C-alpha cells in the first residue's frame, strides 16, 4: 500500500541544496540544527557528544540529499530519527543505554525537608530524574514535551506505534512524578516565576 504524499515545509530548501545550492544548505542547517542539538543534549547530557551527533546527522542529510524523494517523508522527522538513533548508539557503546525492562521500578523518595531548594539543586534534581529514565522513555518525553512533536511523529522517530508511544510516555511521566515529588512545590514556584518574568 502506498503512503499518501507528505507535505514538507523544507522541501524547497532540500531540492535546492540537492542541486548544490550553498545558501539553501546554510538555511537548512539554521532551520534544523537547534532542534537536533536540543534532542541530542537531552538524551546524552554531554555537550561535546551532542555537538558530534548534531554534525553527524547533518552530514548524513547531505549524503541522502541527491536521492531524497520529496513527499515520502518530512526531512525533520527523518533527522529526528537519525539523531535519536545516533544517541542510542552512543549510549549503547558507552554501556549507558537502559532498556525499559532493565530499569528499576521508580521508588517514591519520601518526604523531604520543607526548605526551598536552590535553583541549581532544583536543576540537578530534574536532570537526575530525566537521566534515571530508560532511554526510550526519555526520548519519548523529550520529543513530546520538549520538542512538542505529535505522538504520530514520535512513533515514526522511534519506530513504534502511537499506542506504544503513549505507553512510554505514561511510564515516563509516572517515574518523573515520583522522582520529582519532593520538589513539586519548588518546580511549580519556578514555573510561576518563569511565567511572570
Amino acid at each position, binding site marked *: 500500500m502506498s503512503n499518501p504524499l507528505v507535505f514538507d515545509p523544507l522541501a524547497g530548501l532540500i531540492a535546492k541544496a540537492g542541486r548544490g545550492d550553498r545558501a539553501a544548505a546554510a538555511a537548512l542547517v539554521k532551520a534544523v540544527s537547534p532542534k537536533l542539538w536540543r534532542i541530542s543534549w537531552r538524551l546524552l547530557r554531554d555537550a561535546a557528544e551532542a*555537538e558530534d551527533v548534531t554534525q553527524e546527522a*547533518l552530514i548524513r542529510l547531505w549524503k541522502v540529499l541527491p536521492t531524497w524523494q520529496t513527499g515520502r517523508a518530512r526531512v525533520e522527522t527523518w533527522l529526528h530519527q537519525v539523531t535519536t538513533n545516533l544517541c542510542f548508539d552512543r549510549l549503547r557503546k558507552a554501556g549507558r543505554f537502559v532498556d525499559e525492562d532493565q530499569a528499576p521500578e521508580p521508588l517514591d523518595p519520601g518526604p523531604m525537608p520543607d526548605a526551598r531548594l536552590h535553583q541549581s539543586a532544583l536543576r540537578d534534581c530534574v536532570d537526575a530524574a530525566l537521566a534515571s529514565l530508560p532511554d526510550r522513555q526519555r526520548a519519548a518525553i523529550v520529543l513530546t514535551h520538549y520538542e512538542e512533536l505529535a505522538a504520530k511523529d514520535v512513533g515514526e522517530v522511534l519506530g513504534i506505534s502511537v499506542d506504544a508511544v503513549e505507553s512510554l510516555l505514561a511510564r515516563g511521566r509516572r517515574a518523573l512524578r515520583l522522582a520529582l515529588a519532593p520538589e513539586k512545590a519548588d518546580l511549580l514556584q519556578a514555573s510561576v516565576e518563569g511565567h511572570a518574568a
Partner: protein
Amino acid sequence: MSILDHHPLNKALAYVLNHASPVPEMPSARIEAAAMAAFSAQTASRPDWVKTFGALAASLVLGVGGFVYYQSWQSEQKALTADADAFAEQLLSTDLDSAL
C-alpha cells in the same frame, strides 16, 4: 493525533522541566561551519572524481593505443626489411653483369 499531544498538563510539565533545566546554548558557529564544510566536500567530490577518472581513462586509452600502434608499426617495418633483404638477395644471386 493523540489526545496527549495538547493536554495542558503536558505543556505545564514541559514548561516546568525546561525552566528548571534549560538546554545549554548550541555552539552554532562550530556546527554550521562543520556542516557547510561537509556540504562543500560532498558537492566538490563528484567533479574531482569525474576528473580523476577521466584522466585515468584517457591515459589508458592513449597508452594501449600507442602500444598497439607501435607493435603494428614495428612488425610492418620488419616485413619491409625482410622484403628489401629478399630483393637484395635476389639481385645478388642473379648474374646481372653478364646479363647486361
